[in-house]
């Protein structure tokens, strides 16, 4: 059935023509993304101009005009008419001080071990696929801090009798509570053995920690005023995170508790710490805390700051954890109760594992904030990385007009790498977790 009237009938599909040159390739991409209209073109030119203003001077300062070798300030003083960039030999000369502060040189291996252990503890904890998470967490949140304290300070804190008395007293009280049903004739001793074991565990661990700190390992004691630099930055950040997680979880649970008094106390605690600036908390811990303590009881300055930071971080952590708790559907709680689990069993076995997993990004973000906030301790006269860097500006050996710029640039690079790294990690976890949700 041909149709002779028609002159031409296409019987096969025409070959697809390539897209117009203006729409593909680099040119097309530029047209679409850079010059798709007058307004966009203006924006592009403006943006390029801003980049031109910022990037070349920065690169010149950091790399091209920078001084790379030298012994002292002479190398970094402007040569006649020359433009001087960053003074890197100064960073090189001061690097040990930036890392350890004034920590005695022959004892710095101890700091290195603490850094290494922390790295080994944290990395597998952060990789979701790594095994032995439980042991890993116990190591990082329980064993590692004790080892670090002993290594860094030198341990051997003497034998405060009252501390031991306290531990014995509390152990007895806990055993008493565990055995209470036996005393009132409601249970046999055998039935309460698990509870007794639990009570033993809860107090045996702190006792062991205290014991470890009192033992004299023959390490040279190193006073905290000698600590400085990255060491102090990390000590504060890690203490903040290690202390804030458990306290934060307890506060979050307390805030969602059925007991009105507990709830009220937790709300006041959380809102108080969240409502005031960290710097006033640090002032409080450095000026007011000594007034609150009995005569002759004094805390180390660093320890006082750590207490302030720990409470501050806990309040923020509590709100993050609370978010996770709220995201757990009610059915999970009801299911747990229906299985006959008690409150702590329900939280431990059902709710918290799910909730904490959900808020890992939030926890990491809190940690980023905390890491940046560690710089504030320099205001109360502790020497963290930024404080140490600032201190080094006043060294006559290296005082040049570019020293402070170089120091701040070094600090900026250090903090940025840490914080950006962590924020990428948080983003990665978020994606990973939401992938699980989608399925």
């Amino acid at each position, binding site marked *: 059935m041909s149709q002779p009237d028609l002159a031409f009938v296409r019987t096969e599909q025409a070959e697809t023509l390539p897209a117009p040159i203006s729409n593909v390739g680099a040119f097309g991409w530029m047209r679409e993304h850079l010059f798709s209209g007058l307004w966009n073109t203006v924006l592009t030119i403006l943006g390029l101009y801003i980049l031109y203003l910022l990037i070349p001077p920065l690169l010149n300062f950091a790399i091209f005009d920078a001084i790379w070798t030298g012994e002292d300030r002479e190398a970094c003083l402007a040569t006649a008419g020359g433009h001087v960039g960053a003074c890197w030999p100064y960073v090189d000369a001061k690097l040990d001080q930036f890392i350890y502060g004034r920590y*005695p040189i022959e004892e710095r291996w101890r700091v290195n071990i603490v850094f290494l252990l922390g790295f080994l503890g944290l990395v597998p904890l952060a990789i979701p696929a790594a095994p032995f998470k439980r042991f890993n967490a116990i190591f990082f949140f329980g064993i590692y801090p004790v080892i670090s304290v002993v290594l860094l300070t030198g341990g051997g804190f003497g034998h405060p009798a009252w501390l031991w008395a306290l531990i014995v007293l*509390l152990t007895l009280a806990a055993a008493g509570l565990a055995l209470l049903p036996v005393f009132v004739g409601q249970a046999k001793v055998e039935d309460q053995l698990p509870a007794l074991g639990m009570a033993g565990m809860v107090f045996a661990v702190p006792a062991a920690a205290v014991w470890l700190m009192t033992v004299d390992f023959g390490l040279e004691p190193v006073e905290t005023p000698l600590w400085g630099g990255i060491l102090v930055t990390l000590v504060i950040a890690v203490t903040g995170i290690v202390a804030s997680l458990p306290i934060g979880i307890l506060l979050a649970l307390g805030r969602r508790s059925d007991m009105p008094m507990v709830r009220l106390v937790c709300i006041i605690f959380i809102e108080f710490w969240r409502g005031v600036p960290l710097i006033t908390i640090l002032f409080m811990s450095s000026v007011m805390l000594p007034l609150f303590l009995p*005569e002759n*009881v004094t805390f180390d*300055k660093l320890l006082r700051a750590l207490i302030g930071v720990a409470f501050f971080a806990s309040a923020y952590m509590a709100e993050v954890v609370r978010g996770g708790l709220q995201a757990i559907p009610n059915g999970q709680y009801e299911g747990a109760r229906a299985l006959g689990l008690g409150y702590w069993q329900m939280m431990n076995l059902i709710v918290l594992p799910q909730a904490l997993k959900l808020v890992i990004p939030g926890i990491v973000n809190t940690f980023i904030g905390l890491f940046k906030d560690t710089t504030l301790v320099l205001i*109360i*006269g502790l020497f963290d990385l930024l404080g140490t860097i600032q201190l080094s500006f006043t060294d006559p050996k290296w005082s*040049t007009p570019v020293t402070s710029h170089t120091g701040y640039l070094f600090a900026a690079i250090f903090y940025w790498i840490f914080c950006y790294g962590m924020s990428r990690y948080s983003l990665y976890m978020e994606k990973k977790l939401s992938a699980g949700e989608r399925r």
Partner: protein
Amino acid sequence: MNKLVLGSAVAAALGLSAATASAATLDDVKAKGSIQCGVSQGLPGFSNTDDAGTWTGLDVDFCRAMAAAIFDDPEAVRYTPLSAKERFTALQSGEVDVLSRNTTWTMQRDTALGLNFAGVTYYDGQGFMVRRDLGVASALELSGASVCTNTGTTTELNVADYFRANDMPYEIVAFEKADEVVQAYDAGRCDVYTTDASGLYAQRLKLTNPDEHMVLPEIISKEPLGPVVRQGDDQWFNITKWVYFALVNAEELGVTAANVEEMKGSNNPAIKRLLGVEGAFGEAIGLENDWAARVIAHVGNYGEIFERNVGPDTPLGISRGLNALWSEGGIQYAPPIR
């Protein structure tokens, strides 16, 4: 439940430790085996650390002298660097045993703050530093100037008084830390940097070009600087006081670190009493009788300390001036040991 336990633990700690009675400072110090000494956070010539973390300076040497008197070991000192703001709290709360941190003796501090000043190890006064190229020769030409200083000290009040008294307008920029003041002054934020004259000489070393700056002749206040202890422990107060007096007496009597052993055989009864050859003056303050001999053997007399840390041959280059002995035109004067 854990929270309850934690709370009660802290409370118990507070309660239990509150029960431990406070002992005398000397006994505490002897039990600890070292003196806890509050110093500044870094003032060259007075208390400063080198790269290896060793403390040096006039204020530091005073602590070392006390340690020498008590332990015969000038190294038995632990240092706590304190900001101007924290220093009194630290002393009051017992965090440090003695505060040797270029602290001005004022009536309010001596009485209302519950402190005792043991003497004046350095007679100072507040001065001004300016850039040479400003062409200023006197502080009276500073009308309208921007003034950098740090807070928490008497300097801030003095400068206000001075400018008000001379009816000159000024702009104050007050920093929390001395290092920040130096940085800001160096960056050109201010025309004038004001603090104790000794501090000006010390901080000048930290400027990019120390030679471009000069200290103006005017001294606008009296700043007697000295070691401080808590009120209520007379024995400790006496030790602090007499360690200082021993340093001054030793210079007056010509006893130095080099000749102290030889001087023990001197015929001068004043020297004999000072070095514990005669009399039992050490016992009266709870120390060994050769306490002053130990001090001088380990750290030298007042003059030696001064010359070593801030004197004309040091980078600070401060002349004795008011701090010369009374017999040499200054006002350093110590009661006799007898």
